[in-house]
């Protein structure tokens, strides 16, 4: 399986290296199958060629950005071809239209640095911006810095150029929902147009408040971004960073407005924003649970979860503009402990259950939570599934992701029942 021109590898080592993400779910490896090859296309034409090969051989294709998510979205369930978009990382700034036009492998922070030189800035970017890619975050439907004012990446994508087995198409408006958050199951993103904003003089304030008090402050003004770190997380952060922050529940607001908060600690939190995983060194493993909740339920959710989790843990909340928050809970663990580690993973499933009871949803679906897609997508689920079947009748586009398939959803559901 080779195309003379496109960089590719069939080496067992490269195939192994391109078959993981940041998760390390127990036992999941039993249900995965090593891919046959890894391709690194350099342009849209080469992506089309790879899809042609995949169609002829009826083999799956798994698109891959930087592999920085933890939902199994880039894990190969049936082998196939990994398409790594590392070499398609170009982007251009359109200052007139206030847009960036990017290839799928463009890295968020590279874009932001270039924008800043022109006095512009991304409206939203992920906490993994130093390495994560444009298409990766769109395919996951992420939230991040700026989501308080500008919503998720979904709200900031203007147009997508898509490659599927039928060729190339460009979509915008209502049709974007068929691709955003779909993990490449309906087509591969080869170009994206994303809104940018003028760079602003931002200030960063910290407030030592509970989640309920935080909610009031967050939505009391026109702020750019806000995130909340609970005392458990600050404690772990102090241990991992060697810092000496007050070990209290803390809200950080980034805003152009003047507020009465602690600017020194606010800036400290802001400057460390790309390093949420630094606490992993205390683990050495980290289990994560991430759900989106109505902002008035966050305190209750964190308290309930905290009472159930026996291992050291901490939570971080990223506030979203429509009075919701993405709550990410980190639980320290040790993958070498064969019983304790899987038991710790149960908490991430338990967290979804608790969140749903409170009107929340899982943050994403990927492979591990594909059975949550119906809840997450709501009324759009049937329409997008029908579309998927139309454009990908043999389910070769990233099978098992978003739309449940095979034994893994059953296995996860079973684990969820035990949880």
């Amino acid at each position, binding site marked *: 399986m080779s195309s003379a021109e496109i960089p590719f590898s069939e080496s*067992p*080592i490269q195939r*192994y*290296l391109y078959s993981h993400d940041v998760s390390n779910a127990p036992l999941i490896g039993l249900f995965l199958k090593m891919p046959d090859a890894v391709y*690194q296309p350099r342009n849209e034409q080469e992506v089309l060629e790879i899809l042609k090969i995949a169609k002829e051989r009826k083999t799956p294709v798994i698109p891959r950005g930087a592999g920085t998510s933890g939902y199994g979205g880039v894990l190969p369930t049936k082998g196939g071809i990994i398409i790594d978009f590392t070499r398609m990382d170009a982007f251009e700034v359109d200052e007139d239209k206030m847009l960036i036009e990017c290839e799928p492998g463009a890295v968020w922070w590279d874009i932001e640095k270039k924008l800043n030189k022109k006095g512009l800035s991304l409206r939203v970017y992920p906490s993994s911006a*130093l390495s994560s890619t444009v298409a990766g975050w769109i395919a996951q439907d992420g939230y991040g810095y700026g989501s308080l004012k500008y919503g998720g990446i979904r709200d900031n994508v203007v147009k997508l150029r898509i490659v599927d087995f039928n060729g190339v198409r460009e979509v915008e408006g209502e049709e974007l929902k068929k691709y955003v958050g779909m993990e490449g199951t309906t087509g591969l993103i080869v170009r994206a147009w994303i809104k940018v904003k003028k760079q602003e003089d931002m200030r960063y304030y910290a407030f030592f408040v509970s989640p309920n008090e935080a909610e009031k402050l967050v939505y009391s003004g026109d702020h750019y971004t806000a995130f909340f770190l609970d005392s458990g997380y600050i404690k772990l952060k102090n241990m991992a960073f060697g810092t000496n922050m007050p070990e209290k529940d803390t809200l950080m607001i980034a805003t152009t407005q003047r507020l009465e908060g602690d600017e020194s600690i606010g800036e400290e939190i802001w400057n460390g924003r790309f*390093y949420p995983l*630094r606490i992993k*060194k205390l683990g050495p493993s980290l289990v994560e649970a991430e759900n989106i909740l109505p902002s008035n339920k966050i305190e209750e959710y964190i308290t309930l979860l905290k009472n159930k989790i026996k291992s050291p843990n901490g939570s971080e909340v990223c506030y979203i503009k429509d009075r919701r928050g993405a709550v990410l809970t980190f639980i320290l663990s*040790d993958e070498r402990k064969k019983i304790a580690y899987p038991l710790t993973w149960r908490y991430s499933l338990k967290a979804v259950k608790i969140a749903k009871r409170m009107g929340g949803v899982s943050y994403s679906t990927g492979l591990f939570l594909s059975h949550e897609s119906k809840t997450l997508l709501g009324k759009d689920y049937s329409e997008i599934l029908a579309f998927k079947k139309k454009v990908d009748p043999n389910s070769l586009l990233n099978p098992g992701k978003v739309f449940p398939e095979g034994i893994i959803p059953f296995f996860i559901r079973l684990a969820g029942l035990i949880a």
Partner: protein
Amino acid sequence: MKIEKEVEDAILKCAQCFYCRVCPAFTVIKWESVSPRGKLYALRGIKNGVIKLDQELVEDFFRCTTCGACEEVCQTSLNLVDLWEKVRNDLVKDGKAPLVHHKRIRDLAEKFDNPYGEPREKREEWIRGFKYRDSGDTIYFAGCTASFRAPEIAKSTVNLFNKAGLEVAYLGRYEYCCGSPFLRTGQRDIAYEFFKKNIEEWRKRGVKRIITSCAGCYRTLLLDYPKIAKELGYEWNFEVLHSSQVLNKLIKEGKISPRKLDATVTYHDPCHLGRHAKVYEEPREVIRAMGANLVEMERNRGDSFCCGSGGGVKSQFKDLALSMGKIRINEARETGAEYLISCCPFCKYHMKDAAKAEGIEIKVVDLVEVLDELVE
């Protein structure tokens, strides 16, 4: 390949966040097996018996310049440079390495006490014409590269010390390779032999302070030698200084006063001097003292992009080294500077090669050369 505890700890702690994509080798090659994340994940696979070490992966472990860019961004603060050197040493112990050119420089060093295979007496040729003492509490350690390949750096350094009235001794042919090329390429045993030869010579001659103009020697003497001394049971009580630190102090004390350099200058941080030893400001202060217009490259100090010549990459993977050098020289070109100044003979020569290959006209010089011309 046996995965020892130190390596296993790093495997477990790696967050797989891929911030280490800044790796110069990955930037050029674009396959994860050369990236820090990829190498750690490969070691995990080897440990778990999922993949087997092959020759290509062994070579990938040696495609790293040990520049330390990965350490700067690592979410879990792993000591990655030490780790890569340990893995290389483990590969050598397992008989999977050294690679052919690394073995060649070792063979030469065993015979001639330097990796260039030059006769020992040639080491001191550059000092002809200078008056010097061969013992004293402060010595100038020229290093193999300045001695045999870049004598202008050694000469300028000593010239400047003389102009400032700073008395430094020089050991001539009794200066030995510091061992850096061997520590970086997993051949620690021969580096230990050079350590012993050097330290014994320094003791014999009453040395207390060592000044070097080579970033590689500086890193080795400053960071590696105290650890080796501890390991081998030697007492370590030497002060190690880089020439840029000494010259900056001499300027501040008014012992040398450079004329104005009416030019735009950019500065390349050698990895061994900058990221490894955190000497970022002294060379810049010297450049400012020259009155030059210092413009920074986009990536500077801790974010600086490696020139590509370190860690044994230039000797074993010439094309890869040159590709990295081309990236860096283009970053220098973008500043519009007339001079690209560095503080390391390896960086200077490699970036000169890269400038030639790219057809870029920029004066690539060592800090001491420029300063020497400006000081009466």
